[in-house]
């Protein structure tokens, strides 16, 4: 397990390789469909400093408010491929070093990770209780009113948030490799 403290530098992110198991520590942001179009179209200033060198997490959490404080109750990853059209430009515009979600992403994102220096972190789907426990503090939230709870950008501080690097800055994608290998087996079994 490799410990990562956020924000992270380009040099350090380029040391990470496909297959590495990592533990994230520090501040990152959640963001899914609405957040990505907002970041691209309106170039908001309030997210800029927070995203620089950090991770954007594809997650629509279950939250609860106790007094004035928000808490994460369940916070697993959502399917990342929906952000494929936006992810590359968002990475470059905001200097993001890590994209976290599930299912992996496509060629455009893989190329952006290579050019800019970044990784795709795969969190375990369906492990929402443990992942919420790794969220130690909710520092704030952007666009809550407009986007609603799942789509808002939550500013969270995590400790020992575990993930696997499945796409790195050297052009490697575990998803591509596994698919190529399983296609061969499947075709043989099917007889085509």
């Amino acid at each position, binding site marked *: 397990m490799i410990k990562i403290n956020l924000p992270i530098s380009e040099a350090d992110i380029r040391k990470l390789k496909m297959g590495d198991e990592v533990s994230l520590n520090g501040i990152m942001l959640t963001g899914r469909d609405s957040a990505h179009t907002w970041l691209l179209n309106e170039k908001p200033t309030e997210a800029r400093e927070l995203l620089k060198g950090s991770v954007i997490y594809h997650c629509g959490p279950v939250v609860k408010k106790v007094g004035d404080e928000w808490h994460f109750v*369940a916070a697993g990853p959502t399917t990342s491929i929906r952000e494929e059209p936006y992810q590359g430009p968002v990475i470059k515009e905001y200097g993001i070093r890590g994209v976290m979600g*599930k299912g992996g992403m496509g060629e455009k994102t893989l190329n952006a990770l290579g050019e800019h220096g970044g990784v795709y972190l795969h969190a375990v789907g*369906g492990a*929402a209780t*443990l992942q919420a426990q790794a969220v130690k503090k909710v520092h704030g939230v952007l666009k809550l009113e407009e986007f609603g709870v799942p789509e808002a950008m939550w500013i969270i501080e995590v400790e020992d948030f575990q993930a696997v690097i499945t796409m790195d800055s050297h052009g490697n994608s575990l998803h591509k490799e596994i698919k190529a290998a*399983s296609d061969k*087996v499947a075709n043989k079994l*099917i007889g*085509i």
Partner: protein
Amino acid sequence: MSFKLDVDRFRDAVTELIRKAATQLPADVTQAMETARDNEDEGSPAKSVLDYMLKNADAARENSTPICQDTGTLIFFVTIPEGVSLRKIESAITEAARLATKKSYLRPNAVDSVTGKNSGDNTGVMAPNYHYEEWDEPTIKVELMLKGGGCENVSDQYKLPDGRLKAGRDIDGVYKCIIDAINKAQGLGCAPGVAGIGIGGDRASGMVVAKKQLFRKLDDTNSDPELTKLENRLYTDLNKLGIGPMGFGGLTTVLGVKVGAAHRLPASFFVSLAYSCWADRRCAMHFTESEVSYD
């Protein structure tokens, strides 16, 4: 003698059924996951991912919080004694879904398909979703499945014959469709999952047969020897695909394969796949006039 339904007691029992389904991984699924973890190579991502899933299931049970934040579609299969009012059953279950959402056992997951508005309490048109049967027992049986969106999105339906797969209108054709569907799904349905398969029927009833298979315990045996053979063959071969937990590679791509069949039109031959993620959340309740038990 007709069954006397105490609606309030029934509503509270269903609320507890929802809590159990959302927060407690069934024992047979836990067992299959443990076996899978022990089976994966030492130091592999597959092994550590399975271990993480199991730890999460423990934590969810202990804290009574959802195993997964996507608490899914609520699908109820209800079996009633003669004379019980379906309208009363439905209204009590709807109320239970509201209560369970308020208590954070469920994420609000019912979105109006036309306006895009979330109802906020898991109720709406065909939400929750019900199926009914009648039996001679003096008991209301309620089986609940929480079917997450990721695994529902990779579920599929084929029509035989299929030229691309060289699949004919027979059991071997069914086999080919399922190999193809699980390969296409890769890790997206949160593997290792359970394949519920419906052979035949029409497009709707075939999928209901497939969904019903997901209620079967993973270690049960199919009463039809022909289907048992198909289940075993698919289980062995799907696990040769190497997709593994979350699609990271590994020996475990599916935890189980369950097949059912329905009569079909001479002209139609559908193969329906209802795929469940590893967080295979299902629970059954037996409700009598004096007692309630969960399984």
